[in-house]
């Protein structure tokens, strides 16, 4: 395996910017950490987790799907000319990506997502790359290439053909075999939050969480929909049409199960009529229903919903309250 310094990696990315649309962590105007195009500035690979829903690169907030002209001419929205190269996602982000890959490919294949995703290359970052040098879990294979930081260098682990293709283009760097110690450190990381989540999942499955609990949590929800909008495994969208002069454009945009209109029928009847029902669904869906359907819980503990919830009822907080009260 090769090692490479941060500077060398930046130079490498800069050298291939004609071939790829390169996107990674950047600092926006007021200091917000986000995803942005590579510029002459190095990417903010050590600034922590990107707070926004990073999977928006493949499944954006809103997008035009197609336009239909008055003469019934169909115009499908095209994707960008260059393949996308994404840098800087963490292990839990990559697990979320792996799930939505499966979600959008299974059964009815979502062409818009899959086309964009297929032509992309993803480089994860792990190791001692936390804001204060703390250790971030190694994904061990959930991306094309992983940059594992040992405190001085990135060790490059290639997992796919795309990863190896990129690696071969890197002319700098030295060979190393020191990954084993980092892997052991990664595997030894304690995950108490995962245990809480699993316990909460079992309590829900055994129907041990009563309705009063959900009513209480729901009273604290102000329906901002931030939790579902930042969640990387939320995949719900709504479709709407814009009538323009000589054509109709069809768009889709993120939807939220926290809104009353999400499930309301045309008659006005609503299977998820109360906020209490909707809050229960938000948690139960990821911890129980997806476990049955996909074989795993679909919260990967990235913590984004907890960070943005204005009243402290994100996934981790609610799971902890469930375990505390019913466990």
């Amino acid at each position, binding site marked *: 395996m090769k090692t490479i310094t941060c500077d060398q990696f930046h130079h490498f990315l800069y050298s291939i910017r004609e071939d790829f649309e390169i996107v990674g962590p950047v600092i*926006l*105007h*007021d*200091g*917000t*950490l*986000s995803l*942005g*195009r590579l510029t002459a500035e190095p990417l903010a690979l050590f600034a922590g987790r990107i*707070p*926004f829903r990073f999977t*928006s690169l493949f499944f*954006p*907030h*809103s*997008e*035009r799907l197609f336009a239909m002209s008055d003469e019934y001419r169909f115009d499908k929205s095209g994707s960008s000319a260059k393949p996308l190269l994404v840098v800087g996602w963490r292990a839990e982000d990559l697990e979320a990506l792996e799930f939505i890959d499966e979600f959008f490919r299974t059964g009815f294949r979502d062409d818009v997502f899959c086309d964009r995703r297929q032509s992309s290359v993803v480089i994860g970052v792990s190791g001692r790359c936390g804001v204060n040098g703390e250790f971030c879990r190694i994904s061990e294979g959930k991306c094309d290439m992983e940059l594992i930081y040992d405190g001085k260098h990135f060790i490059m682990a290639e997992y796919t053909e795309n990863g190896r293709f990129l690696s071969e283009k890197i002319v700098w760097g030295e060979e190393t075999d020191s990954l084993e110690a980092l892997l052991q450190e990664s595997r030894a990381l304690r995950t108490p939050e995962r245990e809480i989540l699993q316990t909460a999942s079992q309590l829900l499955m055994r129907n041990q969480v009563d309705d009063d609990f959900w009513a209480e949590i729901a*009273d*604290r929800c*102000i*329906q*901002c*929909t*931030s939790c579902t*909008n*930042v969640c990387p495994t939320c995949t719900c969208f*709504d479709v*709407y049409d*814009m*009538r*323009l*002069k000589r054509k109709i454009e069809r768009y889709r*945009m993120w*939807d*939220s199960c926290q*809104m*009353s*209109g999400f499930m309301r029928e045309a008659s*006005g009847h609503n299977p998820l009529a109360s906020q209490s029902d909707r809050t229960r669904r938000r948690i139960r869906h990821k911890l129980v229903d997806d476990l049955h359907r996909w074989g795993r819980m679909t919260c990967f503990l990235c913590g984004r919903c907890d*960070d*943005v*919830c*204005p*009243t*402290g009822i994100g996934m981790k907080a609610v799971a902890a309250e469930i375990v505390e009260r019913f466990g």
Partner: protein
Amino acid sequence: MKKTLTTCPFCATGCMYYLQSDHDKFVGIEPSTVHSIAKGHPCVKGWNAFQFIHHPDRLTTPLIRKNGVLEAAGWEEALDLVVHTLPSLQARYGHDSIMFFSSARTTNEENYLFMKLARAVFKTNNVDHCARLCHSSSVLGLAATFGSGAMSNSISCVDEADTFFVIGSNTTENHPQIGARILQSVKRGAKLIVADSRTIRLAKAATLHLRHRNGSDVALINGMMHVIIRDGLENREFIESRTQNYEQLKNTVLRYPPSIVAEITGLTPQEIIDAAHLYATSPAAMIIYSVGITQHTHGVDNVRSLANLAMLTGHVGRPGTGVNPLRGQNNVQGACDMGALPNVFSGYQKVADEAVRQKFVNEWRVADLPAHAGLPMTRALNAAERGEIKGLYIVGEDPVISDPDQGHVRNALQQLDFLVVQDIFLTATAEYADVVLPAACFAEKDGTFTSTERRIQRVRKAALPIGGARADWEIFCEIASRAGYKYMHYNAPSEIMDEIARVTPIYGGISYSRIDQIGLQWPCLDEHHPGTPILHVGRFVGGMGCFCPAEYRPPAETPDAEYPFILTTGRSYFHYHTGSMTRRTRLLEREENRSYVEINPVDAHRLGIRDRDFVMVATRRGEIVMSARMTKDITPGVLFITFHFEESPGNLLTNNALDPESHIPEYKVCAARITRKP
């Protein structure tokens, strides 16, 4: 993908976020995680604030009425018509025969220029805006007591309060970030008194929920003060060192013992005592109110009474205290600050003051400026109905939907000789216009908004205006220039702010370079001043605080045999005011797409009304059909409606009775009846 940092165009909380655009098309919102208010989580309206921008209904070209029909026209023709007609009306009917309605949705720079246009170019003080309808009572009531009519503290003070007294504010719905912060504070142990006849979301978390009768606020607050004085809980030191007129207050509230107040308010005497004790004995207690206090014929009295309560207990001028009116619209604070009001220039400098006028005469290079105050907008519409106002220029405002007694408003607009409407959509009001000017929206221009906590923040141009639309400030400059006035040329809005800073002491230290990332709170007196998060620290802005006691007066219209219900109005969380933007936003319109009336199940059963039935709600002004929503959250005998829906407009029913001082209409109480639609 472009990300432009800007300020939300909806409520006045002042969240900042990034507008995402791709090739000049708006595709989403990304929160700012470092902004002190937004903290990474806009409310549901904020998350959806990009969709209306390129809605196909946007106005893209000027329209002129020809043979009774609005037809597309060029800018030259439309502007010439405005510049020709307004002065000709003035020549015929006098300078004050025309009126200017400014807009709380446009920027500070635009409000400043519009009032400059009215005063310097058209020589009239007939300029006002919709603060008349929401917080004119606050501006007067707090100026009389504290010397400054704005939120005394900062939003961050919510984190420091021990007790909240929330009255007439459905905070989680209308200022969601502030409401959420109150809920968080309650979770950490703060106490919460909610005074509201409806069981709003905050009431569910309240220590005390006072469901007092609508319109009985002065009695309730006087009753609390009576108990505080009776039980020796007043702050003697504060009263003596920082206030005047205490004896007069004491004499007034002496007449409001809990037993009498209980009769007026419908509360128990103990509830009044508990509320008084909780508020008075807290180390830091914060009053938060909104239009449930101001929109009454006794709105100014309500505000004065709250200020009296805060002074009586010394809960002013410290973190976690104060009297905090939550302003409704994105820039309603700024529109007031900029002097889009009939009696003041920017910074609340009175037009009647000779020295102030001279300052503006010099800055604007005019011979003179009118000295007498102009008309408030509510009075102006009454005057239009009588034929005394002939020309009206409305910017970003839809009085047909937003003003009380729609029949009266429509009639007033019909009486006008000439109506100009400048907006982003063809509103119900624009249907009456002789000229419609298409404006750029918040995402298509540079400028600043001032939030409810007096924070001046940047608004940024993320894309070119749609079609032929132009920024409001550019339109005003063009009109001034065509009218022969030479001193309204600016290369960019930053230059307008520089002029504002020169003539407006409270904005003296504001410049775009200083508010590039995070805004400053006024008063900000010079370029080194750090801004003012808390007003009245150690000294009231007006010097000594002045107790202004008020007597309880019932609302203008109370239930009777013919109209046995109290009708009160408010907003839905999912819509913003007249709905021109939110009703063109997919998820928000899906959530609430028709008018509804909240009714208690006890009343509903008695009248044979079931949930989602169509019902007829009628007042002395008219009747509308809407869907019934049965909920125990509303008190028996009270009906609640919103005013967002043009198809069945709530304001067809409301009463145009005005507060004698602030001229605010009594939106919050009128008499109504409800029947099941056969």
